[in-house]
C-alpha cells in the first residue's frame, strides 16, 4: 500500500498528535470502520502505551501518516491518551531536559 492510500491523501491529523504522544487501546473493540493499519495500531497498544513514533516504526508508516492514523483512532475513541505519571514533578529542569533530549533523539 502506498502511504497516500493509508490516509486517503490526508496529511493533517484530525486531532493534535505529537510524535511523543503516548496512546493505548481504549476499552472498546475496534469496528469495521477501522482501517487495517488502525486495527494493527490498536493491537499494538493493547495492554501497553506506545508513542506515536513507536507506532510509526512498528507499522512501518511515515511519522506524519502514523499521526493521521492515530488521530483518527483517538477521535473515534479506539485509542486514548496514556497520561504520564503525575507523581513526578513536571517542573524539574533535569526531567524536562531529559525529555527534550529524548525528543531530539527521535
Amino acid at each position, binding site marked *: *500500500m*502506498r*502511504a*497516500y*492510500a493509508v490516509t*486517503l*491523501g490526508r*496529511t*493533517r491529523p484530525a486531532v493534535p498528535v505529537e*510524535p511523543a504522544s*503516548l496512546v*493505548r*487501546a*481504549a*476499552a*472498546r*473493540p*475496534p*469496528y*469495521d*470502520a*477501522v*482501517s*487495517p*493499519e488502525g*486495527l*494493527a495500531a490498536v*493491537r*499494538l497498544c*493493547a*495492554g*501497553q*502505551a*506506545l*508513542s506515536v*513514533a*513507536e507506532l*510509526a*516504526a*512498528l*507499522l*512501518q*508508516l*511515515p*511519522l*506524519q*501518516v502514523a*499521526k493521521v492514523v492515530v488521530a483518527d483512532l483517538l477521535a473515534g475513541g479506539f485509542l486514548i491518551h*496514556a497520561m*504520564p*505519571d503525575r507523581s513526578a514533578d513536571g517542573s524539574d529542569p533535569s526531567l524536562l531536559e531529559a525529555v527534550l533530549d*529524548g525528543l531530539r*533523539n*527521535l
Partner: protein
Amino acid sequence: MTTRPQRHRSTSAAPPSDPPAEDRNRTARRSATALGALPAASATLLAGAAYAAALSPLPTSAAVGAGICAAIGCAAVTTAATVASRRAAARTAVRERAVAQELRLLPELLDEGMRQITAAARRVRRGETAEPLEFPAARQPGDGVVAGAPSGPAGDLTEAVRRTLTEAHTAVLTAGSGRQTDASLAMVRKIQALVLRALELLDDAHDRTEDPELLDVLFRIDHLVTRTQRAVESVAVLDGRLPRAVRRPVPLTTVLRQAAAETEEYTRIQVAPPPAGYAVAGPAAAEVIHLIAELAENGARFSPADTKVTVRAALAREGLVVEIDDQGPGLTGDQLEVMNQLVSLTREPDGEDGRTGLAVVARVAQRLRLAVRFQTNLYGGVQALVRLPSTLLHLAEEDGPAAHEQPDHQRAPSPAAYPADTLPLAQVRVGRREFTPAPPTGLSSAAVDRSRWGRRAVHTGRAVGSVPAPEPVAEAEDELFGPYPGVAWRADDGRAGGR
C-alpha cells in the same frame, strides 16, 4: 425439394427411406452435436494457421496459404454439416428456407473473414497496424436476410465460425504485437525500474517530513508515479506479460485497497472490508490488482464526481466475487453486451475508442480464467463482477477488520493454511533488539504490504532508539485477539503506568 439430391451425398447420416419421426429427431440432435464440436476443431486449425502466417519468416503467401487451406477445410466440413443440419431442420418449409439462407452465407463469411485475416497478417508482417475484423454486412441483423433465423444448429454454426474468425484474427494481431514489442520490451522494463526507483525515493521522502503541506505534494507525486507504474504495466499486460513479479500471497484487503489506490480518483473508491483470511496467490495478485484497478477507474470515470465507487468482495461457490459498483448514468443493454463481449474476447476491440482498459481486463481475465461481467445495478449505474476462482486464493488465519463478521470462529484455524515460505513475517528492529510479531496479524500484513510493493528496508532504529522495546506485542495480541469477540478487553491494566 432441394434437400433430396444432397441427401445421397451424406450417406451415413441419411437412411434411404424416410425415417420415423423419432429417428429424425435423433438425427437432428446428432447433427446439432456434430455442429457444436466442429467449430472447436476448426478454430484451432484456423488460429494455428493464422498465427503461423504472422510469425513465419517465409514469404507470407506460403503461411497464409496454410491458413486459407484451413479455411477451405473448414468450409468443406461446413458443407457436409450443412446437409445434416438442413435435414434436421427440414420439418417446415419456412424454417428450412431460413436455415438454408443462413448457411449459404457461411462461405461468404469465411471467404471474407480469411481475406481480412490474410490482409491483417500482411500488414502485421510489414509492421503496420492491422484493421479490425469486420464481418460482411449481410450477416447483420435487421436487413431482412434471415428473419429470426440464426437460432438452432445453423445459427450456432454461423456464430461459431464468426468466433473462430475473430480468434484467428486476434491470434494474428497478438503474434504481430509480440514481434513489434520485442524491441520496446527493454524500454518498458527500463521505465518500470525507473518508476520503482522513484517510489523508493518517495518512501524515503515521506519519512523525512512532518510538514502536512509538503507531504501533500509528495502524496500527489506518489499518486502520479503509481499511476505511471500502472500505465506501464498495462503495456506489459497487453503484450502478454506479467505486470510485476510477486511471489507471496497478498491479503485480499490489500489487493482491493491497492487497486483502489492505483486509480485516478482514489478517494472516491470505497473498499468494503472483504471476507477475512483470504489472500490472492502471489503471481496472480499483481494481475488481479491491475484488473480491479481498471474496472474501478472505469466506474469512477463514468460516474458523477460526487458519487462513490464501491468495491466489495463476497464469498461464492468455489471462490470469491468482487463487485465494483458505480452510480453513473449506466449503459444500455446493447452497450453492456458490447462490453461483455470485449472483456470475454468474443468481440474484436475497435482499437481507437479508448477501450484500452477493457482490453487489459480482457487479457488478464483470459490469462487467469476469471469471469468478468458488466450489468446494471440498483443505482442505475454499472456493476462489474469479477469471479476469482478458489485456485487463485489462499485461506489464512489472518485477522482483519472484517474478523468480527465471523464471531463463531469459522475461519480456517490451521496455521498450515499459510505455507511457511509465503508467510509474511515482519521483522522489525526496535532499538538493538529484534522481534518477529506472531503472524499473521494486522502488523505483519501491514509490513508485507510495504515490502510487497518494493518498499524500503525496515527502518526504525533511530526513531525508537530511545524507548524500550515493546516486546510483549505478540502475547498481548494472542490474549486479546485469540478467541474474538467475547474475550475480556484488557486495555488499561498494562505496563503503561511504569513507563
